[in-house]
């Protein structure tokens, strides 16, 4: 951005003052660009065409659906693709389908407001709608998609926890044709996934959920609307005769680890003994122990850990309460 002559001298003095990281930060965050960089927009007609273009223009082309994260990163010059390949018009992208045996398939182009409004989601996958409802604002949710939320691979992604706990699988078109990937092994790090160049996620699929499943998503933001989570806790539970407690619990955490985190220990603790106030607390403590948050502008690691404990307890209690009403 700014080239400076006498660069060595300048850097020496900066290092002495210990502000070189600040300087970099200035260029990265403070001195923003006014608009988007130039790019070419393409709208292929087939998956093959789209995928091939992405492969032959590796590093220069990106698939594009809602753009709610992509445009922000382009405006900030974090990403500077030469081509945006609009895949949302491809076959099946805008479809939601459900049947009792086959489960739920949500096309990658289905926006969050449509997902929230879909009766089959509300009836069988309520926790997914609840999580989607917490994303950004209504206006942005007309563009944002659940598949985009997942592929963006932010540890803070609000819908990822629910998708993980409902055993979501991604349908992906790639060089070898269609394949399925489980979400549990999908995330590698912040913004990093197992997707390869040329891969296009066509939809996410969820199996029919266990009978009587209940869920709760608690998002702790700095204010009530459209914030990124300081901590996000997703809990689900369902009657399960194979456990001592008669209930199977699952818990996932957002914003407290490099990737969305499923705390397996919660299920174990609440499976092997009857569910009580005490065991719920033990499970919440286990969630706190399992997470590895960092300090950032949104919150300190210390606060995040404490909030994982408190909100995991609240979420688990809520699910337990919902399940007891079911039994009563």
């Amino acid at each position, binding site marked *: *951005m*700014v*080239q*400076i*002559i*006498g660069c060595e*001298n*300048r850097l020496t*003095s*900066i290092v002495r*003052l210990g*502000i070189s990281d*600040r*300087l970099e*930060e*200035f*260029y990265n*965050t*403070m*001195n*923003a*660009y*006014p*608009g988007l*960089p*130039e790019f070419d927009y393409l709208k292929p007609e087939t998956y093959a065409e789209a995928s091939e273009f992405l492969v032959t223009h590796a590093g220069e082309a990106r698939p594009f659906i809602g753009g709610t994260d992509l445009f922000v990163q382009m405006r900030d010059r974090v990403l500077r693709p030469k081509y945006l390949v609009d895949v949302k018009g491809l076959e099946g992208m805008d479809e939601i389908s459900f049947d009792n045996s086959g489960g739920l398939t949500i096309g990658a182009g289905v926006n969050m407001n449509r997902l929230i409004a879909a009766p089959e989601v509300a009836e069988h996958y309520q926790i997914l709608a609840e999580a989607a409802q917490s994303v950004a604002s209504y206006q942005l949710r007309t563009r944002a998609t659940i598949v985009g939320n997942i592929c963006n691979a932010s540890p803070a992604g609000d819908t990822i926890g629910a998708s993980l706990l409902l055993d979501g699988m991604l349908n992906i078109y790639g060089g070898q044709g269609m394949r399925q990937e489980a979400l549990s092994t999908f995330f590698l790090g912040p913004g990093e996934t197992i997707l390869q160049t040329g891969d296009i996620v066509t939809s996410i699929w969820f199996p029919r959920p266990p009978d009587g499943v209940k869920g709760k998503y608690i998002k*702790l933001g*700095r*204010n*009530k*609307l*459209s*914030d*990124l989570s*300081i901590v996000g806790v997703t809990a689900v539970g369902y009657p399960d005769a194979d456990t001592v407690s008669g209930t199977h619990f699952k818990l996932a955490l957002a914003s407290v680890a490099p990737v969305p985190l499923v705390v397996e220990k919660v299920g174990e603790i609440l499976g092997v003994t009857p569910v009580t106030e005490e065991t719920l607390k033990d499970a919440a403590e286990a969630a706190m122990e399992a997470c590895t948050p960092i300090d950032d*502008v*949104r*919150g*300190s690691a*210390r*606060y995040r850990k*404490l*909030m994982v404990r*408190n*909100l995991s307890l*609240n979420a688990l209690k809520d699910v337990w309460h919902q399940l007891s009403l079911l039994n009563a």
Partner: protein
Amino acid sequence: MVVSETKPNPVGESKPRLDAREKVTGAAIFGDDIQFGNALLHARILRSPHPHARIISIDTRQAEALPGVKAVVTGKGFPGYIGLYLLDRHIFCRDRVRYVGDPVAGVAAISEAIAEDALELIEVEYEILKPVIDPEYGVSSEATLIHPELDQYQVASFILPQPNSNISNYFKIRKGDVDSAWDNCAAIVERKYRIPHIQHVPIEPHVAVAQVDASGGITLWGSSQSPFAQRNLIAQALGISQSDMRVIAPYVGGGFGSKAGVSMESLAVAIATKVKGRPVKLLLTREEEFFTAFVRQGLIAYFKMGCDGDGNLLAMENKFYWDSGAYTEYGVNITRASGYSSSGPYEVPNVKTDSYCVYTNHPVGGPMRGVGMPEMHAGLEQCIDELAQQIGMDQVEFRRINCVKEGSILVTGGKMHPTGLLQCLEKTAEAIGWGHKAEASAANKRRGKGLALMWKAPAMPPNAGSSAWVELAEDGRVTVGVGGQDLGQGSFTVAAQMAAAALGVPYEWVRVATPLDTRYSPYEWQTVASRLTWSMGNAVVNAAKDARQQILEMTAEAWDEDLENLDILNGMVVSYKSEREIPLENIVIYGLPKADDQGWIGGPVIGRGKFMPDYVTGLDPETGQGERAVVHYTTGAQAVELEVDLDTGQIEILRGAAAFDVGKAINPELVRAQIEGGFVQGMSSALFESLNLKDGYVQNPSFVDYRIATSSDVPGGIQSIIVEVPQDDGPWGARGVGEHSMVPTIPAIANAIYDAVGVRFDGPPFTAEKVYLTMLEAGIVK
């Protein structure tokens, strides 16, 4: 006559806003909407990446050679200084940069992208200087001088810079004898608070378009609260006539002070002088808005106050270190205002205050809604609560005893004018149900109530003036010319109401001449300080009365009647004696035939009016004492009821109540809108807002991490109470309320949090994390 019984008076009625339809339909024109065609050039600014450095050299040759670049401008050609009260700023930096974002060079190009590319080609060599990032350190002798030339700067007579220091204004109060008063105190509270920098965050970022014609005449279009101040200050800095500088100010998408005085506008003008004939547009990014526009300066405040066993305040000793940033041309008067109001709205016999305006290598401090008062009251009104609690007195009762009443001796020595503060206190306490503790809504919540008082005077020069004109068209419809801006507060609407009432025509007949244009609009100092309804209002009334007088004199002569028997009602000139009547139609342009029908009298009617306070006296520089420090104080009270979530530390404001003495509500709904809007902005600054500065760098220059209250965060009920104790020189008794409504919110919320969970903080924002961790340390949660 029947008509006299129904004499219409739109003043006091909640008339619909003049600009409502335009704004709701999207037809209203804002700065960025104005079209300039292909001639338009786009400007971008190269900014300092260092908080403090000397500029060794700037090489612009490569940037100039980039195709599409039309001009590259640095401080070289612009030696003049600019500033409102203290001329301490160049348009572009010349030898030194003083904050991260300080403008070093500007580029005009055929596109924003090319201008941005050109910035990368400008080579600047800096020598890093040690920054000052703490105002208390800044006043010490070890601190690097940020403005070594301070003693040579031009400055207003009432601002007192301290040469060879970073103190650009030092305001003192020495009233009574504080030192010997402490012995008589039954209770003393001593506290330190740190109030962070915050931003105004108007929805519309700053935008300016400048064009210089062949003869050097300059036109500036901008989102502006202060077209006349911009005309004056930019002309002075460039060494041209004010008459050759024209500022056109369309609708403003929010200002809150950030668009007062001059900031980025002068950059666009300076660049435009190098590309004569072509309009040059500069539009700030949201990030630039956060760190290069005026910020509300930070404050480190020390309070010590004591009272006797009966709850009478005896003494206050306050020290304010204002973190006023790299340039304090505007900020100096904010620190002065906090000094002359430093007792808060209380009568205190012994007061010692030291208010320091301190240069730091932080973003430029400037005016923001309340100019110093929200920051000062944040701590002061918590100390009042603590003091009352220490002597076991109810906080409302304590305030009742001590608050200023008519005739109270003020902190500056003069006497308080009639005020409805006591009424505000009582009505607010009643509205919030003071003394009744309600059950929390859940087992993991704690509920509390808090209350705070406030006062604030317009912070401005003693002789800030207003003017207005009123003219009529053939059909009798009225156009009012004003120079004050409508920032959303409704100033055009109340100007129309007052003109209609003073002239005698229906409100619907009145328009306001917009956009403001210094070539055609009458002079107005600035749209700041909650002064328009009062000051501009007086000018409008005077102009309307002048027009009315012209019409009545003409009619009296034409009808051969006495002036006192004539009136204008509902757009008709009427005689109470002869019962003749004639519509304004045509006569306000063509006049009337003489009584003997031999010739004509009258002609086009144009009324003129002005207002300038002439009674403000100076204050002694050593004691801060004087007869009349300010024009008047608007006073008020605010209360909240809230819940603290013990699991997260989150605060939920359940409801609010507020009462302000506005003298007279010209438009009650607009007053309520101000009371509610200020509550929300105050609440936002109490709970969420902080410009996080680290080594001079803003850590959160975007809405991602600078959170403001959204409509979802606002409580369902804010009860707005209007108290009307008339101001002797206000139109219909009116005084301002625009800023006041956010002044007491931080301490009201802090006092309510204390009521709920028994913890206090050294400053806002009271984020969930801060509240939770404080409760954890206090053992309230585990």
